[in-house]
């Protein structure tokens, strides 16, 4: 990846900058609100913490229209195949955020019905710890994701689809 960066022509770098700028400032979350974390996610979208500052107020109900999969809450074994199907339905480019301790690693529930971490079924870009994370914590996670997007090279994926990340 990095040696390709040195060889990338000037125009492509500029294109990357522009595309990532557009992507990170208009992430449309697919709020998969599963449990308690969903309430803090909604509070982040409400007037006081105002996720609209980041261009993210448009929570889509359909995965086909979203690009950020926020897994907010406990993932149970019964729900896991549903989440996997939702992730598969999201078109590229897409990112995933594991919000809260349950999504990161099962949280306080080491039980027979809880999946110990959503990264067992989908690739996660950012982990936001907390039980639940405060709105400030979630926003910090979103900003971290924005920085990650800013570092990525979408032109590589467009020009060489075989170099696309594994899903």
């Amino acid at each position, binding site marked *: 990846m990095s040696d390709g960066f040195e060889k990338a022509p000037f125009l492509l770098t500029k294109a990357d900058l522009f595309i990532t700028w557009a992507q990170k400032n208009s992430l449309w979350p697919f709020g998969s609100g599963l449990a308690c974390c969903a309430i803090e996610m909604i509070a982040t979208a409400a007037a006081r913490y105002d996720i609209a500052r980041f261009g993210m107020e448009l929570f889509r109900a359909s995965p086909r229209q979203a690009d950020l999969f926020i897994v907010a809450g406990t993932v149970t*074994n*019964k729900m*896991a195949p549903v989440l996997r199907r939702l992730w598969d339905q999201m078109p590229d480019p897409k990112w995933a955020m594991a919000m809260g301790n349950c999504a990161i690693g099962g949280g306080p529930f*080491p*039980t*027979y*019905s*809880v*999946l*110990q971490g959503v990264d*067992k079924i989908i690739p996660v870009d950012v982990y936001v710890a907390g039980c639940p994370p405060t709105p400030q914590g979630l926003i910090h996670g979103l900003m971290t994701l924005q920085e990650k997007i800013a570092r990525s090279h979408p032109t590589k994926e467009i020009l060489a689809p075989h170099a696309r990340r594994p899903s």
Partner: protein
Amino acid sequence: MPEDQADRPELRELLAALAGRFAGAVLASVVDEGELSVRLSKDALASALRFLKEEAGFNALEDIAAFDNLGSAAEGGQRFTVVYRLGKFPGALRARVAVDVGEGESLASAVPLYRSADWAEREAFDMFGVRFEGHPDLRRIYMPDEFEGHPLRKDFPLAGRTGGA
């Protein structure tokens, strides 16, 4: 907490009526702190509940709780105990009806009397494997239909049989 809820005389009368009507089926009883608690033999369950609802006026089934007695010194001597919590409102009277049932045996369903028993009995079936005869649709409620085992039994491991995901 109802600290000053002394013994209600209505409960003592009720106990007497129950013992009279279902002689032999009332295995143990106590009236304490505003609540009547009886242990019944399981064959009398349906008619005792009907008596309590239609004649004694206990119009609310507040809860059905099942217990697995494995490994503990259970009063009834059977694998499971199922406790019905009945309430009479207005009036705030409470009755606790406990029945013991062994593994593979079943209890009469309370659904014909109290609609609220529907999902509570499904939950007891899902979590413990206790069956209820006469339930309109007895199947699992939380775990997927193809799940094997009954999670709240004492011999079911917390992390599950597949070792947890």
